[in-house]
Every structure is written in structure tokens, then in C-alpha cells.
């Protein structure tokens, strides 16, 4: 067994060697296959054959192979690749791992992702940055459901180059007929899902056939050896260079009053000083003055480079804006059709607001109920109400303001996005914008002459939203009514939204499932916001059981206008009072999804006001609330 054997040039002429390696390009690729397809073995083989394994690693590998290997006394290359301790014991790779190796022509970053169905999220993650995917097929098994799944996901993520590596050819006597049969079956499937082109290669990762060197055992194969192919395909950045210029602004560099640079990574195109550019979404135009770099300005920059640009004019431009070619700018819109991959154990709640991050823009976004979900095994579309972990579906997305975008098929940088839960901050999903919905592109915000400030001033008050939350029967409506009476007596303009005037009208179509509860609160929040825009003091009395929705409404309003009032009544006490007899019915099973009994209530963590109704009467509570609000109100009240 030989370990690392260095290149002869290293010893004879190190400068020549370094010069050669200085100009290598970089290819990122992904390997897909299940544990049994020999994926880790193939990667181990590539590392080994390209001399990336050192003596100490090899001796560890030899002893590990004998101890826990699956290849008897032979070297188990898979052990080079499998990472975390727990996984090593289970014998499965369960996450995305990145490996590195280099040849004279290229440096390679390999994303190794698992083939199990429940790990769609990992494969999508690995695929998002890959120029090429190697789909492994076991020659003894042929095209399997998982082969189709991997190919579909690679295609969905827009990977341009697909290699179909028919592995374990040594176990089918290097038989050309087996290979041809598999390639034909694959070609038929590939065409059915829109894959235009792929490169089939018969290999043996275990024996090394057609991996780095041409196999003597398969003289019938005239195509490229795997490594030669990896060394020669065109990488994404070089393709993106011929597209129109786009650079999402990451950070504005202002060390002093005389310098204002816009820093970002060029998503596509090339740029030179003097080029006319347009700032999106404002649409203002200017020209590039300098491409600033430590060690001297540059006269050209291309897709894939991180740069700092200065402009000839003082135009407004900040993080989230996109600097683009003046005559071919991207669009802005706030409603989209998108393909979404759900990545969180908690399922998607249509109607709930999530953070959406695309390029350098982060906005609040609501996902409508999916139009359909896609079965990754059959590619069949099925109706869906939501998306669970590892589900893929197509849905409409509405953002709270316009974002600059391009369809994912045209730009991964301006069409790919992640979704972040507003409370847990977890990355819960990823998606690809397919296109903007026409109605959004045509509906523009009407600039209003009478502003919300003007409305409020006329009424001589500051708009407020007093949001009462608590269990059914806690006393929300009672207290809210008393507060409104007091405000009215003080000559204030107010309005109370409660179950009676909302559930019977605006939200008549909604039930009490979690999804409907989310939509219920969203609509109430929007109505309440319009009323505060009109200058009113709005009071709402709804159970509103979820923190996320209350936080969403809070985010709709200017800072300081939202008051969360927690009417804190223990469930035992509310049930004892049972003013409307609802608890009794719920206990009898006559009401489904009843908050506190069969549906959760998430109490506020830091409400502006908390009322303990076991110690405070409704009248006292109302006085406290008016007092508390008066205390922080401007003298205008």
C-alpha cells in the first residue's frame, strides 16, 4: 500500500510547481448515492489517487479498516470520508461534509451528502453550491427510485453538469451490456423530467477503474475517465460572466465623508470604470467611478469577485440594493410563485410571516397554502395544505415590500432564498423563485398625500394598538370594553375589534385549525394597522394563542405603537368561571382545537402590561391600563 507520493516537480523545481498551481481553477461538485452505492469509497479513492492522503492518515485508515471496515482486510476508503463520531459508529454519513483535493488543473471541493430519503434537506444544501453532480448507480441494481430522486433534486437546484457513474462494474464482470441497459433506462427517465444532457461513465470505485485512470477491463468504453471530465467542465462563475452585470450591495464603506464605497460580490457580468449602472429598486442611474482595491484600483472585475465600487454621483444606495447594468436591470416585485424545500421539523404554517433572505435583502414574507407538493420519488404532484420536513412544494409568496430578483433559472444569487423562523431563528426552508405574479408587478403603492401623521394630528392623539391576549374567558373583552369607555370619556378616537365584529364578518370563512388561527390574526393585524394609519387607538380582544403571530402584528407597526396586554388568568380559574359554557363543551369533546385544552396557548414572554385577574378587578385593570398608557403617551393625550 503506497501513501502520499509527491509530484516529481516539487522536488526538482518548486517555483515551477507553484506557478502551475497558482493558476488552477476551482470546481465544486456533489456526490449522490446511498451508503451501498459506494459513494464514500469513490471519494476516498479520488483523495487517495490524487495523493491527498498522508502516511499517518493511511496508517490510521489501515487499522480502522481492520477494526470497523466493511471490506474485510482490504482498505475501506469510506472511512476516510465519514466524519462525526456517532456516524462512524452507525456506519452512515448523515450530514453534508466537504472534502478537498487538487490535481494540476483544478482544486475540487466535494460535497458529500447522504442518500436517505429523510435527508432531502442535506442534498439540496450540497447541491446549491455545486457546478456538477455525480449520480452513483450500483451496476447490479440499475436505476432505482433514489437515483431518480437524486437526479430530480440536482436538476431542481439547477446543476448544469450531471455525471451518471455506474459503479461496481467489477461485480458485473465489466459487462458493456449491463452498462448500456442502465444508460438507456436513465436516458428515458432523464428526458421525462427535462434533463437535457448527462455524461455516463462505467467505474469501479473499489478497484479504481475509470476513476483517475482508464480501465483496461473496459476497452469498449470510449468516453471520458471521471477525473478528466471533472477537470474539463466549465464552472458556473465563468458562465455567469457573460450575463448582464448585477451586484447585490452587502455593505456601504464610509470611512470618512469623502469616501463612499459599495461592497459586494458580483453575481453576474463584468464591470469597468465608466460603465453606466442603475440602482435597484430606486431605479436611479449613475456610472462606476472606481473599482477600489487594496494595492491599487482595478480596471475590470468579473462575476464571482468581491469588490468595492464607487459611483460618480451621490445616489442613495444601501445594503439590500442591487447595482445593475443600466440598460438591462432586473425587476422588483412583492408576489411570486416559488418552489420551496421545507427543512424544519415544525411544518410550514401558511399565513405566518417568516424572514426571507435573498441576496443581501431580508424581508418579511408570508407563504400561501401550497398549490401542490412534489413527490420526490415519482415526481407526481399532489395537493397539499402545508409542507413538512423534506417536503418540496410550489406556493405563492408575498413579501412586505418589493425585492429585486431574477428567476432562479437565470440567477442563483438573485433567485435562491432561505426562510427563517422569526422566533427560533432557525433556517426552516429554502426556495427558488420561479416568476413574479403579474398582479404584483402592476400594483404599485399609491403614494398618499394625507399621511398617518396628519390623520393622528387632526385627532390630537398618538395612534396605538392595544392587543389583549389570554385564554378564553380570561376577561379580555370585558377589560377592553372598560378601557375604551374611559378613552372615549377622555375624548379619544378609538375602535374595539373583537370576536363579534370580526368572526361574523371579515373572517367568517375561517375555522379554528392552527392555520386558520394564523390567518385570522394576520387579517386582524392588517385591519388594525389600517385603523392606526387613520389615527385611531385600536383595541383588540382575541385569544391570539401564538407568539409568532403577535410578533408579526407588532412588526407591522412603528416602534412603540404596539402594546401587548396579557390578561393572565390561570386555566383552572377560566374553566371555573366558564362564562360562555365553552370549557364544559370542550371537555366533553364537542369543540375541537380549544385553546388551553386541545390546542396550545403560548403566553407572552415580555408583555407591555400584564393583568393578574385573580388579584385585580376588571375596573382596576382598566384604570391601570389607561394610566400605564397615559404614562408613556405624549402630552397630546
Amino acid at each position, binding site marked *: 500500500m503506497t501513501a502520499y507520493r509527491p509530484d516529481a516537480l516539487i522536488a526538482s523545481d518548486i517555483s515551477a510547481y507553484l506557478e502551475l498551481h497558482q493558476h488552477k*481553477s476551482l470546481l465544486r461538485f456533489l456526490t449522490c448515492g446511498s451508503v451501498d452505492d459506494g459513494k464514500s469509497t469513490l471519494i476516498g479513492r479520488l483523495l487517495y489517487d490524487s495523493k491527498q492522503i498522508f502516511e499517518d*492518515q493511511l496508517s490510521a485508515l489501515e487499522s480502522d479498516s481492520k477494526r470497523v471496515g466493511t471490506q474485510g482486510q482490504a482498505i475501506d476508503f469510506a472511512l476516510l470520508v465519514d*466524519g*462525526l463520531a456517532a456516524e462512524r459508529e452507525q456506519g452512515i454519513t448523515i450530514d453534508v461534509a466537504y472534502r478537498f483535493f487538487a490535481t494540476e488543473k483544478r482544486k475540487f471541493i466535494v460535497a458529500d451528502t447522504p442518500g436517505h430519503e429523510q435527508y432531502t434537506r442535506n442534498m439540496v444544501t450540497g447541491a446549491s453550491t455545486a457546478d456538477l453532480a455525480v449520480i452513483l448507480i450500483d451496476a447490479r441494481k440499475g436505476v432505482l427510485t433514489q437515483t431518480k430522486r437524486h437526479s430530480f433534486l440536482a436538476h431542481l437546484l439547477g446543476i448544469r453538469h450531471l455525471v451518471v457513474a455506474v459503479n461496481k462494474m467489477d461485480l458485473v464482470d465489466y459487462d458493456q451490456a449491463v452498462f448500456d441497459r442502465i444508460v438507456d433506462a436513465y436516458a428515458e427517465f432523464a428526458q421525462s423530467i427535462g434533463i437535457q444532457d448527462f455524461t455516463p461513465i462505467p467505474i469501479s470505485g473499489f478497484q479504481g477503474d475509470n476513476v483517475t485512470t482508464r480501465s483496461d477491463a473496459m476497452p469498449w468504453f470510449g468516453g471520458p475517465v471521471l477525473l478528466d471530465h471533472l477537470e474539463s467542465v466549465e464552472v458556473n462563475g465563468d458562465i455567469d460572466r457573460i450575463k448582464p452585470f448585477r451586484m447585490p450591495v452587502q455593505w456601504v464603506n464610509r470611512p470618512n465623508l469623502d469616501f463612499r464605497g459599495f461592497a459586494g460580490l458580483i453575481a453576474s457580468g463584468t464591470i469597468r470604470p465608466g460603465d453606466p449602472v442603475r440602482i435597484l429598486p430606486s431605479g436611479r442611474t449613475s456610472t462606476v467611478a472606481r473599482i477600489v482595491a487594496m494595492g491599487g484600483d482595478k480596471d475590470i472585475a468579473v462575476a464571482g469577485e468581491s469588490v468595492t465600487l464607487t459611483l460618480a454621483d451621490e445616489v442613495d444606495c444601501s445594503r439590500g440594493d442591487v447595482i445593475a447594468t443600466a440598460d438591462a436591470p432586473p425587476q422588483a416585485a412583492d408576489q411570486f410563485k416559488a418552489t420551496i424545500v421545507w427543512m424544519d421539523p415544525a411544518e410550514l404554517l401558511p399565513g405566518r410571516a417568516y424572514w426571507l433572505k435573498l441576496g443581501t435583502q431580508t424581508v418579511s414574507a408570508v407563504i400561501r397554502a401550497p398549490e401542490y407538493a412534489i413527490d420526490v420519488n415519482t415526481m407526481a404532484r399532489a395537493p397539499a395544505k402545508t409542507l413538512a420536513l423534506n417536503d418540496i412544494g410550489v406556493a405563492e409568496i408575498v413579501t412586505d415590500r418589493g425585492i429585486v430578483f431574477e428567476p432562479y433559472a437565470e440567477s442563483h444569487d438573485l433567485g435562491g432564498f*432561505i426562510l*427563517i423562523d422569526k422566533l427560533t431563528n432557525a433556517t426552516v426552508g429554502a426556495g427558488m423563485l420561479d416568476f413574479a405574479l403579474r398582479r404584483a408587478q402592476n400594483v404599485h403603492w399609491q403614494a398618499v398625500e394625507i399621511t398617518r401623521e396628519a390623520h393622528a394630528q387632526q385627532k390630537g392623539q398618538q395612534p396605538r394598538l392595544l392587543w389583549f391576549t389570554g385564554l378564553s374567558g380570561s376577561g379580555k373583552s370585558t377589560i377592553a370594553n372598560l378601557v375604551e369607555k374611559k378613552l372615549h370619556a377622555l375624548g379619544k378616537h378609538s375602535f374595539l375589534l373583537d370576536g363579534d365584529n370580526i368572526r361574523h364578518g371579515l373572517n367568517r370563512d375561517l375555522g379554528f385549525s392552527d392555520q386558520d388561527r394564523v390567518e385570522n390574526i394576520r387579517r386582524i393585524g392588517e385591519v388594525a394597522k389600517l385603523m392606526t394609519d387613520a389615527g385611531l387607538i385600536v383595541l383588540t380582544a382575541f385569544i391570539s394563542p401564538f407568539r409568532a403571530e403577535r410578533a408579526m402584528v407588532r412588526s407591522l407597526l412603528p416602534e412603540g405603537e404596539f402594546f401587548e396586554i396579557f390578561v393572565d388568568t390561570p386555566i383552572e380559574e377560566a374553566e371555573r368561571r366558564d362564562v360562555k359554557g365553552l370549557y364544559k363543551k370542550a371537555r366533553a369533546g364537542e369543540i375541537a382545537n380549544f385553546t388551553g385544552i386541545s390546542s396550545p396557548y403560548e403566553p407572552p414572554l415580555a408583555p407591555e402590561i400584564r393583568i393578574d385577574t385573580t388579584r385585580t378587578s376588571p375596573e382596576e385593570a382598566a384604570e391601570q391600563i389607561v394610566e400605564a398608557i397615559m404614562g408613556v403617551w405624549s402630552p397630546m393625550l
Partner: protein
Amino acid sequence: MDSATASPAPLTHLQRLEAESIHILREVVAEAERPVMLYSIGKDSAVMLHLARKAFYPAPPPFPLLHVDTTWKFKAMYELRERSAAKAGMELLVHQNPEAKARGINPFDHGGLHTDLWKTEGLKQALDKYGFDAAFGGARRDEEKSRAKERIFSFRTASHRWDPKNQRPELWRLYNARKAKGESIRVFPLSNWTELDIWQYILAEGIEIVPLYFAATRPTVERDGMLLMVDDERFRLHPGEVPVERSIRFRTLGCYPLTGAVESTANTLESVIQEMLLTTTSERQGRAIDHDQTASMEKKKQEGYF
């Protein structure tokens, strides 16, 4: 497109790695409240600092450097530390764990406890003390198996723990830097660099590194199969041990009584790289920390070691 002007050659791997690292550095500055760069003075730190200077030029990098000091680094490292911070125009914060100081924890008497108290605990203390919510580290994925699976933005709980089973997926160039109060992220801009990339970049950019990486005649003793340098008078010689002048250099740098040297005459960057490429053992052999157990680094990371 102006086809008359020749487009430059395709980007090289180093140009791509540089662009990615700069993008990561800027993203953190745009999204975190109080970022800091952990600076260990080694060659990877030197590259990371250089990338930060490029990312924010002409402004100085808008965050301080933090050195979690064990008081046992090589003298030459302390010298470069001061010079590099000044050259970058950055504030340099040095933290030494007061408990380790009071208890006189040292590498001669305390073994693993030395690393744990000075480095692991010291780092947590410093991050808490200054309230940093994002810390750049120079770790690379090619160094060790568990690192290969760690995200570029690696989330830490309020008690600084890493949960390898619950990492945020990282897609495209989109990093989720959101976190609750008290939680923090470790960010690794050099994740996709290999050791050879680091050396090639140092060569291409003319980055200053600690002279200890180059061979010179230095006083040494041989102990437990390791070649140690007698860097100051605190080095405790065993009975019969006499420092011997040898031509040595270091492949990695840490606390001097724990860092093994290699005998070498390579005194230029090219010859160091040549020696590195001709060597048949991987980089971390020189560091005592990894020998404890196979999955030791993973365990240390879960506990909060960088």
C-alpha cells in the same frame, strides 16, 4: 457586452477562495452587532487578517482583534501580534484567564487542564466579558474530520456549546446570522481553504508570518519524541537536559512547551512549501492536543473550544 475588450482569464481557485472569504467577512459585519476576530498569530490568522483588511479597504476592519492568551506563546508571536494589529489599524484585545493565572496553570504541570482553562474557558470568558455576538476563527475544514461537517456560520448556545446534530443548513451564499440574545456565532471564513492554499496565498500576497515558520538555529531539547524549543527562562529542564542548538522550524504554532519543531533548513517560503509538500505526515501531528482520542476535537468543540 464589449467584445472588443479581452475578458480576463477565468478566476483561479485562490481568487475564488478570496472572494468567498471576503463575502463572509462583510456579511457578518452587516448583520452582527458586535463582531470580533479571534487572532491566534499563526499563519491562518495572518491570512484571515489580510483578507479582512482587503474586505474593508480603505476603512480598517470595523471590529477588534482578540487574542486569548495563555502567557506561554513564543516571544516571536507576541512581537508579530503587536505589529500586525498596528498595521491593520485595529484595536487589539488580549484576554488572560484570571483563574488560570491565579492558580499558576502551566503546560509543564497541568497537561490537558492547561488548554482547557487558558484557551477554552478563557475564550468563553472573553466573549462574555465584551458581549461579542460573532467571532471569526481561522479553522479550515481540511484540518480534521469533524471540521469538515461544520458550517461556515456555526451557531453556539448561550453557554457556548456546539450541537453537531442541529446545524442550520447553508445554501448558496446565504448565511443566517440571526440569533437570540446571549447566543453567538462562530464564523469560519477560511472553511474551504486547504493548507496548500494558505501557503500559496501567503506567497502570492506577500503576507508577513511569524519567523518561526522558517528554519533558523534555535536552542532545543528532545523530549517524549518531540523537539521542543527553549524559548525563555521558564522552560524547566529535566535533570541532565542541556539545550542543543539545532536548525529547526515549526509547522504549527501554539504554546511553546507544547509545540513540536521539525529539523529543517527551509528558510524561504518556497522551500517551506516544498518541504510541506514532500512531507508524508499530515499537519496536526505536531500538536499534542489531537492525540488524546480519535474524536477529541469534536468533543472539545462541543464544549466550546474553537
